């Protein structure tokens, strides 16, 4: 039963106040993209056993989407941050490096 700090409200929000939204930092491929790109974007989601970046929405709260870095095995949360960003804050990436040396996720490591 997860709990995350909403980076907008600053509260610890119970999982039942949130909606899970899958992989974060998706790069959208629209018209003009290749079949490969489009398939990868829409279906071939990251599914790591370990460090993962994912989206959550504070649905019963402020209604805002945020991203979380979480371990899919231990549920450890390395940090949350607003969804309006192209890459995770360095601070969070550093935190992960301390706790999961050698981690890698998409183009981040």
């Amino acid at each position, binding site marked *: 039963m997860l709990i995350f700090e909403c980076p907008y409200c600053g509260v610890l929000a119970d999982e039942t106040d949130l909606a899970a939204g899958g992989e974060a930092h998706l790069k959208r491929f629209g018209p003009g993209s290749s079949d490969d790109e489009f398939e990868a974007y829409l279906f071939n989601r990251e599914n790591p056993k370990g460090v993962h970046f994912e*989206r959550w929405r504070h649905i019963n709260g402020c209604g*805002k989407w945020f991203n979380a870095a979480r371990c899919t095995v*231990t549920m*450890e*949360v390395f940090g949350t941050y607003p*969804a309006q960003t192209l890459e995770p804050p360095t601070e969070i990436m550093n935190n992960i490096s301390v706790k999961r040396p050698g981690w890698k996720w998409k183009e981040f490591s």
Partner: protein
Amino acid sequence: MSRRFSNKGRLIQADKPIKFHFNGVQFTGYQGDTLASALLANGKLLLGRSFKYHRPRGVVSSGPEEPNFLVNLGKDNFFEPNQRGTMTNIFEGLTATSQNHFPSLEFDFGEINSWLARFLPAGFYYKMFIHPRPFWKYIYEPLIRMSAGLGQAPKEKDGSTYEHFHAFYDVVVVGGGIAGLQTALVAGRSGIKVLLIEQHASWGGRAQIDEDEIDDAPVNSWVNKVLEELAAMQNVSLRTRMTGVGVYDHGYFLGYEQLSDHKANKDGPRHRLWKIRSQLIVCCTGAIERPVSFAGNDIPGVLLASAVRDYAINFGVSVGQKTVVITNNDDAYKTAIFLKESGLEVPVILDAREHGGGEAAARARAIGIRVENGKVISRVIGRKRVRGVNVCLSSGEGETIERIGCDTVAMSGGWSPVVHLWSHCGGKLEWNDESSMFCPDKSRPPTNENGESFVETVGAASGNTQFNEIVKEATELGLSIGRKFGGKQIRSDVPKVKQHVEKPVEPLWFTPRRAKRKLRNKTFLDFQNDVKISDVELAAREGFESVEHLKRYTTLGMATDQGKLSNINGLAVLANALDSPISKVGTTTFRPPYTPVSMGSIAGSARDSVFQPVRMSPIHSWHVEHDAVFEPVGFWRRPFCFAKKGETIEQVVNREILQTRSSVGILDASTLGKLIVSGPDAGKFLDLVYTNVMSNLAIGKCRYGLMCSENGFLIDDGVVARIDENTFLCHTTTGGAERIHSHMEEWLQTEWWDLQVFVQNITEQYAQIAVVGPNSRKLLNKLGGTDISKEALGFMEWTDASLGGFQTRIFRISFSGELSFEISVHASVGLDFWNALLDAGSEYGVMPYGTEALHVMRAEKGFIMIGDETDGTIIPQDLNLNWAISKKKNDFIGKRAHERIFMRNPDRWKLVGLETLDGTVLPDGSYAVGAGRNRNGQKHTIGRVTSTYFSPTLNRGIAMGLVENGPDRVGEVIKFEKISGEIVEATIVDPVFYDKSGSKQNV
């Protein structure tokens, strides 16, 4: 015979006798008794039947680990099966019956299984009942199922209520024994927020029974003193009858509080489920004594040594007059000594250890008890009650050296720490050879969201059985917790206790050590499920070597006690059979709940009127008063139709349609979603969200729009009105309001966050009413206030207007093909406006219509309905909606998806109208069949019905459907197949059945 001591016992209120019934017979006990202690005091020892062999069983324990004494408790709406007699406090009027026997507890036909036991070893059913095949369904399985289950199924709806409670603590201390009390006390003194819970009705745990003194006072008075101090702390909460049942990720903890199970008066919630978040959970859950494995160890009268002691000290009940004690540790001596000192006979203590016990043994001998070292029980004599034991050498094969008469056997095979809560969320265990226990491996604790350990154990739960060490561990942990969670600096001393010198336990997995097979066939590990040593050995022999395979093959540990008594003994036997160390065999997975939890408490208060929210339109009360037949649409209730006495549903719907088409009808459309999309980039955004262009919509105008998912499928439709330069009002379907609002927010926040757009869901602010039919304008004109002529307010236009004194917004849109006005007013005046319309329309016979009439009318017009024509696999092109898909736009959600090969396939099924040759209604959901079969031998299909109705307007069945190349095949007759195989022929026609030119709506 068992009996009650004159001094009654520490938990008994001797001045409060209580009458209760067991198996129809009235008994008397006292306030404070459990059902088990009260029946024991009344000389009842045979209390239940086992699951598989229906062997006679008595109580073995005094706590939640009890496998044998389960009862059907209570009556009617308060009936409950499988209630543990050891955990049920009696109250005036309690009724209970024993379980799993026919015709009676004393004489049970099922016991035949016991005589056939050798033919029914572990997993026998996997090897039998295979031939002949039909016998399985008609003979074998019914036979197996007949013997299923323990207690009876309840027959009535539950008469109790339940509730939940969310709570947040720095620390939850589970278990109110010495370890828990001291930990909570020390932590509490620092001022941090602490919850201390205890599953039993009273505090103190084992120490009050087992130990002499603490801080130079009897344990009892120390407990009371500590409780007093705790109770005075504002920051500490204390709860009894509350069990910690589960530990989950991120510090989530479930507490199960039983509020009225022990009371005759059932008012108030029965159970309260606490959903707790805690930074730390400290398990001071003690340890559970292990049975000893000897032949006949399941006969009534064989109990755990600690249970015999509990019944004597807590309830003043002696289980028997003559008790043989068998043990591999010093603790059980306490039982013998207490019994002897109470004037009962203890013919012998059999200590399996070659060198016997320590101080305790000397004390026992000193008061005249015979103590035999290196000797054990080879088998118990008796069937429904112990009559004696055969004694043999611990190291031998079981040759009887001596028979000793007795009516009770108190056994102790050592202790197993209660590590369940430690393990639920991934805490690991390590085998400790010295104490023969699986103990928490503190180097591999469960971790929380910060990656930090969040469960601790103290006391016997840590595998610590030495009193002095327990109080020290508790004090130290209490202090460190206080520091960790920012409490005040405090000093707390370790209480002074006296520690007797104990000799270490020696593992005793079965007795005697080289027991002959005959004995092992009679030695029970899992009492409820009747798993014997021989079963475990058979499983090992057959390759079920993993402890998880063993469990599933033999059902060891799968009974209602979840192996609290049996697991460790069982896996030790497995380890022995595999010749590998116990540490390598390991345990099965510990899963919540620690003890079973009522389903009612999990559901909480959500029943009857608050089972789920019902969403109601502002006009709901009118609908209820006017006999609306409601239909659930999501959480909304919408009138399906408005029935009048004596009408069938079909008649009602036809009446509503004909009235609307011929004069005027009104529809409560308030549930339709209304989203305001506003901002400098609103038009740009909507162009991305809708398949068609919205940015060029003129202010004051409306446009029908489609929305697709990124995967290309049609997800919603509705009319968009442009309010001003920056603002659009988007209508969605009833189910779509929240869904599409979320969809828009998701795209705005996570993809196009540079766009300046606000989306606001204002669905509930308004009541929206469709006024529909050729007389609708006349009706509205009667209300007056605004010119709504065709010239002033044309088709697909909207205006803010005053009507009959109401502030309204009128949209000239039509979902029925008639002249139609959709009018919204503030929700608070919705009902008034509705009534005003009814008044004004009375001369036109105005009547409300429901969703079914709405559906039929839109189908008559060939309008699609999300959820009918679409099902999540339909793209707009399938519905011939290409006109609403912009070719000009570079991008919109779903555009790229439409480019994929299968979506461009010209052979996709497309929308058409369908008319049966005989005018009947096509069966809903039916498929059109083509020639031949597909590669899997299934009949080849070429289309299907998506909507089908009787049209009262056309007086015939009409349908819409998706058909392969449908639009090119208008006029063709195709075959639909009913489930019965019967064929219904239908002609492919244009989907617009009524007023093809649109002349009726455009007036």
